[in-house]
């Protein structure tokens, strides 16, 4: 029982990170119908930015308080990653809007290759590992045994929950969110009614990048190691999460992220760790084949 609960906590922690990345995929897909293949690499870049900022604050500027340092990294990292998200959309995707179907996807794959090689070039190919931070654990007795909850796991879940609440408010109750939902339903109609579509799409990319930045920081805190090739697998898993939850649906992305995190953790815990990625990829295939609109997505009606 305690082993099960322990894995549940680990799975939810991992799932929160996947959920945050998945939101970036799902929002972009919802609004312009494109798989932003480079999003996983934006996440990887964000993890690097978080790592560098954290080191700069603690080593170069001598910020003593860990909490303050993490807060500054969070805010500054979100700003810097958003800038990347904005530039990528502006340069690589916007010129291709309205082009044929595959063009933005190919451009996104090119961007993904560019980003991972760029980071490899400027930061070197080796894994970057940080001494563990926030590793104190709370021991919770359960029945005969006990489970442990590390401070960083708590941090990850709390930060994710708070951000999701903020995001929910933005999408539901602000003019920006209304514009986004309008563009999602019908971009042409929205622009006829005075919604600035380009600006809305830009802001969607910025929001996605900002959430990926938080995911990058949390990933860096949780695992303490990051490498230039870390964008691909988490990226595909987060996309799986978005598809599993129903692409285009925000709660779906979070639900999908948590499910993927849980499935991966339980698979590693009870079966074999070698094939954990196979499990995640198989789920993607199975979901798309048997449940193409995902758990919470609207079925896609084919209009002729």
């Amino acid at each position, binding site marked *: 029982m305690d082993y099960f609960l322990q894995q549940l906590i680990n799975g939810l922690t991992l799932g929160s990170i996947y959920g945050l990345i998945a939101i970036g995929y799902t929002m972009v897909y919802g609004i312009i119908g*494109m*798989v932003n293949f480079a999003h996983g690499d934006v996440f990887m*870049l964000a993890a*690097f*930015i978080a*790592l*560098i*900022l954290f*080191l*700069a604050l603690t*080593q*170069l500027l001598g910020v003593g308080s860990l909490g303050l340092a993490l807060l500054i990294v969070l805010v500054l990292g979100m700003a*810097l990653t958003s*800038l990347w998200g904005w*530039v990528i959309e502006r340069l*690589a995707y916007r*010129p*291709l809007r309205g*082009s*044929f179907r*595959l*063009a933005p*996807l*190919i*451009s996104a*794959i*090119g*961007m*993904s*290759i*560019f*980003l991972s*090689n*760029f*980071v490899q*070039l*400027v*930061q*070197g190919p080796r894994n*970057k*590992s*940080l001494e563990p931070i926030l590793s104190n654990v709370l021991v919770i007795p359960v029945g005969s045994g006990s489970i442990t909850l590390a401070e960083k796991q708590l941090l990850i879940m709390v930060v994710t929950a708070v951000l999701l609440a903020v995001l929910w408010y933005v999408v539901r109750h602000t003019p920006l969110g209304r514009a986004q939902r309008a563009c999602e339903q019908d971009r042409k109609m929205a622009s006829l009614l005075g919604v600035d579509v380009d600006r809305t799409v830009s802001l969607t990319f910025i929001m996605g990048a900002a959430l990926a930045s938080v995911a990058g920081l949390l990933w860096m805190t949780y695992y303490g190691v990051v490498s230039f090739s870390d964008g*691909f697998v988490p990226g*595909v898993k987060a*996309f*799986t999460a978005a*598809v599993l939850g129903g692409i285009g649906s925000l709660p779906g992305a979070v639900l999908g992220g948590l499910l993927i995190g849980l499935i991966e953790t339980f698979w590693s815990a009870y079966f074999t760790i*070698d*094939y954990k*990625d*196979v499990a995640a*990829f*198989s789920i*993607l*295939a199975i979901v*798309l*084949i048997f449940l*193409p609109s995902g758990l919470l997505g609207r079925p896609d009606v*084919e209009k*002729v």
Partner: protein
Amino acid sequence: MGKAGDAFKSALLAALVTLGLAFPIVALRTDTNLSNQLVLTERWGLTFILAAVVGAGVFLLTLVRPVLAARATPKVSSRTAAPPHPFRRYLPRIGLALLIAFPLIASGIAAAGGPGALKLLDNYGIQILTYVLLGWGLNIVVGLAGLLDLGYVAFYAVGAYSSALLTKTFGLSFWLALPLAGILAAFWGLLIGFPVLRLRGDYLAIVTLAFAEIVRLVLINWVPVTGGYAGLSSIPKPTLFGYSLGSEPGGIPSLIGLPPSPVYRLAFMYYLLLALALFTYWVTQKLRSLPVGRAWEAMREDEIACRSLGINTVTTKLSAFATGAFFGGLAGAFFSAHQSFVSPKSFEFMESAVIVAIVVLGGLGSAVGVAIAAVVMIGGTELLRELDALKAVFGNDFDPAQYRMLLFGLAMVLLMIWRPKGLISTREPTVRLKPQPARGAPSFPSAAE
């Protein structure tokens, strides 16, 4: 003032944005010191140079672009009316002649004091031709049938491992293993194709990607059969009628009295690959005029119309998948025989991305376009390895090969923006219901009635 002022403003903005982008990731480099801790190295000079270069570039572009646009406009309209340049008609033949003569040219360059013939044949000839073969195979799936397959490397891997296991473990001859590898890969195409048929567009792309990753992970983890990360080594080299092509006694070169040199085997492999590629090209061209090929192209243009006309899209898609996979398997068998070593490292997602990029940049369906794209993308990035002269400019730490994939990704983005429909974008349908009116002539279908 106006124009230069605007250009200056956008240049300043671009420089500032670059500064923002580069601030942590370029300006501060993380390194591990001797006690295994991460330390930062500051590189502010590089960061400001980068920002200045981007700013200057944007300044020039903004000034030059209106001039270029004004000059280019009349040119475009005249080009659409003019008949295609006669060079275009002979391009395939010239290309073929060059390809057949390539080993001789390479030896000539080597004799004239250029880089060695071995290197030219291997790094340029065989590598580019492998991608041409893969590109033509994938062209059937992506270019003709319009199904975006991001997991083509899975079939390449199946072909390579099948042929390796068949020749090494079961002792079959390469000439038997080659078609078998293709057939096995085609079976895998059917197997993977079957469940994904209902999916469209982007979803299909991602599921094929997932399948390719599963294949790769199985190759890594199924150690007793595949050797895991270490892969399979000492795969037997192909022979010709039982005679070796190496320089050892008893091999064909020594039997006909040629001086010993590893070039012969490489030239033989080159011609084998060329034959495989031409076979692929020939089959594709033949298939295009058969009902199945026409069904592929019809399906690419409009799937719903296809179904309404009674074309079975399930078998059509499956046949495209299997045919494409077959050629991927052939390429894989060649690869394992040529390298005599296979490992999962060669079958990563990047390979799929490169092949898809070649097909899309080649213009989706144009065989010549695919070949040109392979030469440009693979040959271009290979050329970077040669640019040692740049070391004189940027210092000895500068290694142009590091920029290979970086520039590859950048080229993919830029080529897509510059020519979203690929390098050769005039894709003529194989059949037309009515003969097309002459180019440039007005076409009013109702006027005749």
